[in-house]
């Protein structure tokens, strides 16, 4: 277990800036998920922590050591690659103990630790086989076994589940969560799948175009996104954003969305009052909007998707499409007019110019 600290990392490949001024503190023993779309720099950041790519600027610390100049084999890390990188010319057992062999661990201890890890990852019967004889899921477990058998301070995982089929992915997600409790390593986990991020991470670091956008617990990232990007990227279906304008009536601040005026929740009164009659984006998640008679917003239902336990409605409100989640059972018909009531406690305001969240008071 060790703390990791990234201090103002920059990495360029030719003209492309892959990682832009990245500063991140990862706590001892935590499972940090680095989440973002393709090309956001998350794999580059991971490889910089591993020591496989030298950053152009910035320092990396693992524990108390500055490891920026230290080669990968001496940083106390182990890595699981997206393609697993299991050595094809060695048996599974030799793959698993490779790291131990390189560090001069004696054969008896090698065998002991290999057995321990093999039972943890359920690859005991595969030890004598060659990787070509294994399925993708089995090879992935071998890759994980090879990494954790050396008891690294830091375990780095680069999209380990993305090459597995959906059912296996679900199963392995739970296995990895269990593994995190058993293994005493700090884990840095890179993925583009926001469901994985929410499920696995103690904290999620959301990256976009090389920069860190938000680093928070899954709950906060979900309910208090720092920007329009985070709100849209996390959660399926993504957060709705309605364009509105602040308006003041009888000293009460409201938001005018199309023809409707919504009251501003008390937590936002002070910060929004300072903005006069500026334009704002009203962010609210589909499950936080209730279909209720007398609600402040009105719209016509375009599409109803019955998803078993609930319905996903697409409603046109003030010219924009809003997704609404409602309980299964009776659903409105397409073409019907409905009134919607967003939960004021779950509404987030964003600045339309910067895309960043407006802080609540």
């Amino acid at each position, binding site marked *: 277990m060790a703390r990791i600290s990234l201090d103002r990392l920059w990495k360029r490949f030719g003209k492309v800036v892959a990682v832009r001024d990245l500063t991140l503190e990862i706590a001892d023993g935590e499972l940090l998920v680095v989440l973002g779309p393709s090309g956001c720099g998350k794999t580059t950041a991971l490889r910089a922590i591993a020591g496989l790519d030298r950053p152009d600027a910035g320092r990396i610390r693992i524990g108390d050591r500055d490891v920026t100049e230290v080669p990968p*084999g001496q940083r106390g890390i182990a890595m699981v690659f997206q393609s697993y990188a299991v050595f094809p*010319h060695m048996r599974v057992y030799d793959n698993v103990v490779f*790291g131990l062999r*390189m560090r001069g661990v004696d054969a008896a201890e090698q065998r002991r630790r290999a057995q321990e890890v093999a039972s943890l990852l359920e690859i005991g019967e595969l030890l004598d086989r060659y990787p070509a004889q294994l399925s993708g899921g089995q090879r992935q477990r071998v890759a994980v076994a090879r990494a954790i058998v*050396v008891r690294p301070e830091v375990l780095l995982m680069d999209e380990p589940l993305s090459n597995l089929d959906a059912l296996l992915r679900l199963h392995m997600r739970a296995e990895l969560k269990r593994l995190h409790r058993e293994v005493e390593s700090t884990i840095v986990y890179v993925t583009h799948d926001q469901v994985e991020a929410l499920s696995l991470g103690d904290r999620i670091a959301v990256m976009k175009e090389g920069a860190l956008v938000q680093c928070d617990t899954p709950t906060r990232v979900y309910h208090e996104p720092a920007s329009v990007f985070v709100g849209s990227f996390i959660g399926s279906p993504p957060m709705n954003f309605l364009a509105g304008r602040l308006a003041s009536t009888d000293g009460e601040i409201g938001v005018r969305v199309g023809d409707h005026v919504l009251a501003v929740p008390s937590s936002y009164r002070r910060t929004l009052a300072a903005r006069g009659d500026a334009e704002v984006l009203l962010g609210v998640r589909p499950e936080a909007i209730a279909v209720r008679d007398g609600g402040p917003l009105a719209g016509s239902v375009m599409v109803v998707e019955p998803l078993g336990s609930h319905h996903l409605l697409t409603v046109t409100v003030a010219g924009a499409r809003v997704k609404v989640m409602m309980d299964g059972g009776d659903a409105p018909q397409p073409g019907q007019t409905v009134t919607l009531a967003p939960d004021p406690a779950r509404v987030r305001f964003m600045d339309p110019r910067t895309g960043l969240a407006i802080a609540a008071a």
Partner: protein
Amino acid sequence: MTLRRLGFASAVVMISAWVLLPIMLIALAAFSPRDVLYQWPRPLWPSTFTLDTFLFFAGSSGVLAATWNSVVVAGLTIALSFAIAAPTGYALARYRFAGRDAANLAILGTKMFPATVLSIPLAVTFLRWGLYDTLLGVAIVHTALSIPFVVVIVTSIFAGVAFELEEAAMTLGCSRAQAFLRIALPMALPGLAAAGIFTFVLSWNEVFASTILTLDNRTLPALVLSSVSGAGAPLHYRFAGGFFMVIPALVIIFLIRRYLLSLWGVTVR
């Protein structure tokens, strides 16, 4: 449909005949008794088979020594060309550096010069350096001829070995060199072995440079060529000699034909 298959079959037959007929004729002649060879018209299928012709050739002066010379030159060629071309191939496959494409082009560009034309000025240079009529001199020329092939082969072999595997080894405690020795090299070994055998055959069959650059220490092809073009060697000697030279190449390529496919870029997973 049948017309297409007929056309395909006849093409196969013709190409096979083109390759096999000369070899067959030489083989038959090499095992025919001397008097059969001098018959006119010569029967296509000899009435008797004999080893006499072959043994006559094998026992002729200089043949065994020349064979040994060929083996030595081929061995030296393999050692030298691998020492130079294998690291080159690895570097070209793994590193991106300024002048990389130019280097590639330059290496292949040496193939533009025919060995025959180069051998004469080389003979003059070797005379000055004292390398004339030495096996090392011939090996150097053969190395120069084989380096482009070995570089291309080794480059494609290492390009096919995912660098991630070496990176994984490095995260587990290997240095760059250890990762190469323990991971990349063992995986490349079958391809490297095939490249080595290809180089052997290239050197074994090379006739022009070795003829011009040797006098007393002839390699086998040089010996046979000089005796064929020189004071008329008997007919059966030439046939037996030709066949004797063809055998190693035939056998070796037959054995490694599977590896040749992967050498030429058709990867068999």
